């Protein structure tokens, strides 16, 4: 009994940091409507800065002062980020905001390693809380008791701040209606900045307070952000009480889940999240989300099938690509195969995003499932390549069917957070269920059969499948189903009013995209000859998002161009610099600020502008843009 009670207290102590970070995320979202992906990065920065300060200044004052000053320093960094970056993208679509803040996260990962090195850092114990309290023969660290007491205190302070101060009233008013607050003459800029500063302060404090309990390392950000997303999905975005209750719930589930499923404790959290989503789609304390902002430029030109000239050009480009083995070496062909595989992956996500308006932040899950599916079939069952290639993607289909069912209950930022959390769950399974997946060592020796083993023949295989997938997806875009899917994206109200079951349509799209991604993953397993948890990882999901954005969301086949450009640049970049995350992150941020329409979208806009020389249509276009 005592053991379970101690386990319960450990859960409560872990909830403290989670609550701090989640409440910060919720406060920022409430006012600015930005889901700050970089919140995990601020949490990690808080831990690193606190580590340095507490090492530098000794004693109780040094420690506690160091923790608070660390949070203040990081909050100041947050203010800078808000003023330089976020102010430019408050009116951008949510997807772009998520992506820009993710770009920041990538940059911080490299910066942290540059400053503090790649090794785990062990922080000091907290002065005054070094010992443990004896509880019926079980030890409870006294620092845990301090953390348990802290979160209700922080909750109380936040409550007072929001209920009893003028600033708090303004924040609550802005949470309900930003435009009205602006109309009443409140200086929005500084309100937003101060809210962002408070949110970042809470995140950094959460990180700093963890150093006596946990080693500081450069993967903290993604670990916490996934948990925080789970917390806000359960508790409801924008609700501080919700963040508190859900943080306790998730931490307790983790604490006891370890006892029940030692290897894959995250399953328990997932089950609870699934139940909450079905019963209360907007979380325990959340409110239904307002309609999502439309992507800019949506109204400019409707999609049309390729003209015969364009079709000829595409076939010509494909034929040209097919001739690559005539003059390129083996390395170039392997790179070519990889690019073709990523065309498949990006096209599958693009289908979901552009036609369905569903920005999945965890699309790699289905890519990776396809890869693992092939690895299981080829290694464990010993099936020939052609059979594995056909059946392996079915694992992606299965995963997409299960997770997609829950994900399509939501939309917008909730959808993005949920897909990310699902992907992370699959990653944890791949990483932790060592007996089946090989864990970090992966599954090796997945080699193609003889007929596809030469770089040239594998390249042709990948190119052929990529062309097939891109064509099939294009056909689906213009099929009745494609239009039904677009209808649910364009106007949920109208599509429901003409008899379209939006959830079932979106679920089908999710399964199509997941299966297609699985095809890419299946090829990828044979290309690399192995499968690792990385194939399910967040960074791969984000690579896909960047490819789609680079190509342009509001295009039919922009992802093909985006994948080619991104993958080629990425392979080159990794060979040139160790700081590829920093460069990539900076690139993402720049892209979001400067070219929100992507390569193909920008080209199309330019072409349209040149075409419409007569003033009438130019006027019409500008009117449409103003109306946006």
């Amino acid at each position, binding site marked *: 009994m005592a053991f379970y009670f101690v386990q319960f207290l450990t859960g409560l102590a872990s909830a403290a940091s989670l609550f701090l970070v989640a409440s910060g995320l919720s406060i920022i979202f409430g006012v600015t409507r930005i889901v700050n992906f970089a919140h995990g990065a601020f949490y990690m920065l808080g831990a690193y800065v606190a580590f340095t300060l507490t090492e530098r200044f000794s004693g109780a004052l040094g420690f506690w002062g160091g923790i608070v000053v660390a949070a203040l320093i990081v909050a100041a960094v947050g203010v800078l980020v808000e003023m330089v970056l976020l102010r430019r993208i408050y009116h951008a679509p949510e997807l772009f905001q998520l992506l820009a803040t993710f770009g920041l996260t990538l940059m911080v990962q490299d910066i942290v390693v540059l400053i503090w090195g790649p090794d785990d850092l062990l922080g000091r114990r907290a002065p005054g809380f070094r010992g443990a309290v004896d509880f019926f023969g079980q030890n409870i660290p006294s620092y845990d008791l301090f953390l348990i007491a802290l979160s209700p205190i922080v909750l109380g302070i936040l409550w007072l701040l929001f209920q009893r101060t003028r600033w708090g009233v303004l924040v609550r008013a802005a949470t309900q209606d930003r435009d009205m607050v602006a109309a009443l003459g409140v200086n929005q800029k500084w309100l937003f900045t101060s809210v962002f500063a408070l949110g970042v302060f809470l995140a950094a404090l959460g990180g700093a307070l963890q150093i006596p309990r946990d080693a500081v390392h450069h993967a903290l950000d993604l670990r916490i952000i996934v948990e925080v997303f789970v917390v806000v999905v359960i508790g409801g975005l924008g609700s501080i009480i919700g963040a508190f209750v859900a943080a306790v719930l998730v931490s307790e589930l983790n604490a006891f889940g370890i006892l029940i499923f030692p290897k894959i404790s995250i399953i328990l959290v997932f089950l609870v999240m699934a139940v909450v989503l079905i019963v209360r789609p907007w979380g325990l304390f959340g409110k239904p989300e307002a309609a999502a902002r*439309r992507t800019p430029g*949506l*109204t*400019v*030109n*409707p*999609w049309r*099938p390729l003209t015969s000239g364009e079709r000829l050009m595409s076939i010509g480009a494909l034929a040209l690509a097919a001739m690559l083995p005539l003059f390129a070496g083996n390395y170039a062909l392997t790179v070519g195969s990889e690019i073709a595989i990523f065309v498949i992956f990006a096209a599958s996500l693009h289908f979901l995003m552009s036609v369905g308006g569903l920005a999945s932040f965890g699309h790699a899950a289905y890519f990776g499932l396809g890869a693992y599916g092939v690895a299981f079939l080829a290694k464990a069952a010993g099936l020939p390549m052609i059979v594995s290639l056909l059946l392996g993607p079915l694992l992606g289909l299965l995963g997409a069917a299960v997770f997609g069912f829950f994900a399509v209950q939501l939309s917008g930022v909730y959808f993005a957070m949920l897909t990310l959390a699902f992907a992370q769950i699959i990653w944890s399974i791949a990483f932790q269920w060592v007996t089946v997946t090989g864990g970090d060592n992966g599954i090796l020796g997945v080699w193609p059969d003889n007929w596809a083993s030469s770089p040239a023949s594998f390249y042709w295989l990948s190119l052929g499948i990529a062309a097939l997938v891109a064509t099939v997806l294009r*056909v*689906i875009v*213009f*099929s*009745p*189903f*494609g*239009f*039904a899917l*677009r*209808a649910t994206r*364009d*106007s949920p*109200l*109208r*599509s*429901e*009013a*003409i*008899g*379209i*079951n939006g959830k079932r*349509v979106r679920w*089908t799209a999710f399964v*199509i995209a997941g299966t297609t991604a699985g095809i890419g993953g299946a090829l990828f397993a044979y290309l690399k000859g192995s499968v690792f948890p990385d194939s399910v990882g967040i960074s791969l999901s984000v690579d896909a998002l960047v490819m789609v954005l680079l190509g342009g969301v509001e295009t039919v086949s922009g992802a093909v161009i985006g994948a080619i450009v991104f993958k080629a640049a990425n392979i080159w970049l990794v060979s040139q610099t160790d700081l590829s995350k920093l460069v990539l992150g900076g690139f993402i941020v720049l892209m979001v600020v400067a070219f929100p329409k992507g390569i193909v979208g920008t080209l199309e806009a330019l072409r349209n502008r040149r075409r419409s020389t007569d003033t009438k249509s130019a006027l*019409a276009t500008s009117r*449409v843009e103003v109306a946006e």
Partner: protein
Amino acid sequence: MSMVPTLLSVENLSKSYGGVHAVRSVSFELRAGEILALIGPNGAGKSTCFDMLNGQNMPDSGRITLLGEDTVGRKPRAIWRLGVGRTFQITATFPTMTVRENVQVALVSYGRQLFNLWGSTAAYARGEAGRLLELVGMGAYAERPCGELAYGDLKRLELAIALANQPRLLLMDEPTAGMAPRERIELMRLTARIAREQSIGVLFTEHDMDVVFEHADRILVLNRGSLIAEGSPEEVRGNPQVRAIYLGEGLVYDARHREGAGA
């Protein structure tokens, strides 16, 4: 009149939010080919009533019988499948599609082809879409992007979409809101003509009394959630209780008519 079938029958419909009775025991019937206006001052419960008929809101009690079926608790899309067309106070269309494609999507749904992955939407029911667009006077705009349309044209497009499932009943929430006076009259004339020709019942809410008195066959007046009057335009106009509620608007209406008659 007794030969005309009842399309919609509402019995003792009620809905309250906390202590506020938004709709109190409202009952009425609507027959095929009839144009019925639901009016009342702001907050009278018109929208709540409408949302309950449309399946967007659950009544606390009462019965709604639409085309012979009890529809309480059904989703909007299920009610649409029964043969109910819907237009919204603020138009809801698909801005990234052309005008024709907007209608084609509705036809795809009506033809139960939503999960057809391989066909071509462009070729699907092209003629029928064109016919519907001609019917509402939008034939010339078929290939225009819907996002470029003026508001009045959007309203007409919405009417074409609402007609795609060959409805027996049209539910129109403030069909002329946000339109210029001339457009209002044209749109309602068009609606009335189509309703008479195809024997479609129309239930609409409206703030513009000119539109209501000119086009409605019958008028229901809601006030504070209760039905206070029901009858022909003349009866309702003469009703002292309605006059009391609508004092301002009623006077303006009479004054305007006198002016109009003089000019």
